[in-house]
């Protein structure tokens, strides 16, 4: 029956990593990306603990009477113990950056924040932002691109 428990555990750990990575890739909300990163971290930790597990062994704690007993590998456990703490540090750093982005660009959507950052960079460099000539009639800037090329901005 032990292989069934192992299979279920492996499915849980791999599924946790896959769900976290998929959430990170598919989301545009910055908070959700950090949250999905935390979920993926939990899956990776579970996979590491499973790698060092033995079915016939006890917890790696040395008791006076049981010195000859087989024990689970304690090295992955120590690594995962460190990885959990480092993961919380990474989450705190990422959330502080998210708060900074929110203060500067007043949004939590990744695409909107990227657009506003690009606009701020263009404005600081004194460049008219490049716009498509094939856009809808209302948004088509007719004289602007020639001026951009004459100005010799960093887009050339």
């Amino acid at each position, binding site marked *: *029956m032990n292989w*069934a*428990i192992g299979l*279920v*555990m492996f*499915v*849980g750990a791999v*599924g*946790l990593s896959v*769900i*976290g990575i*998929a*959430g990170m890739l598919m*989301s545009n*909300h910055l*908070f*959700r990306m*950090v*949250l*999905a990163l*935390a*979920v993926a971290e*939990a*899956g990776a*930790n*579970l996979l590491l*603990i*499973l790698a060092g*597990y033995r079915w016939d*062994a*006890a*917890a*790696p*704690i040395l008791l006076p009477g049981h010195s000859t007993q087989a024990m*689970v590998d304690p090295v992955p*456990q120590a690594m*995962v*113990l460190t990885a*959990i*703490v480092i*993961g*919380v540090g990474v*989450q*705190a750093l990422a*959330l*502080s950056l*998210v*708060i900074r982005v*929110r*203060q500067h660009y*007043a949004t*939590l959507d990744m695409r909107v924040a990227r657009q506003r950052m690009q606009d701020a960079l263009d404005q600081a460099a004194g460049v008219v932002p490049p716009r498509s000539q094939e856009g809808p009639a209302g948004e088509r800037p007719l004289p602007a691109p020639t001026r951009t090329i004459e100005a010799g901005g960093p887009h050339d």
Partner: protein
Amino acid sequence: MDPMTLLTLLICAGILFGAVAAVSMGNVVSAVIAAGLTSLFAAVTYVILSAPDVAMTEASIGSGLSTAIFLYAINRTRRQEHEKDD
């Protein structure tokens, strides 16, 4: 079925359910709570895998401190929203 296998199956189902809820839930606060629930189930899994020290760390730091940090950050951004509205 072996009761141990059944327990493991239930806990892994709880982990996967919590992860899906954390990724796909509409409200951000609910998603953070679901992620904390996922960490708590993972701590129970560590106890089954005979790693009690990792289980203690996961339950206190991964489930407690991480959720607290997330809720603090959400609170910070919400307060700025209110100040902008006023």
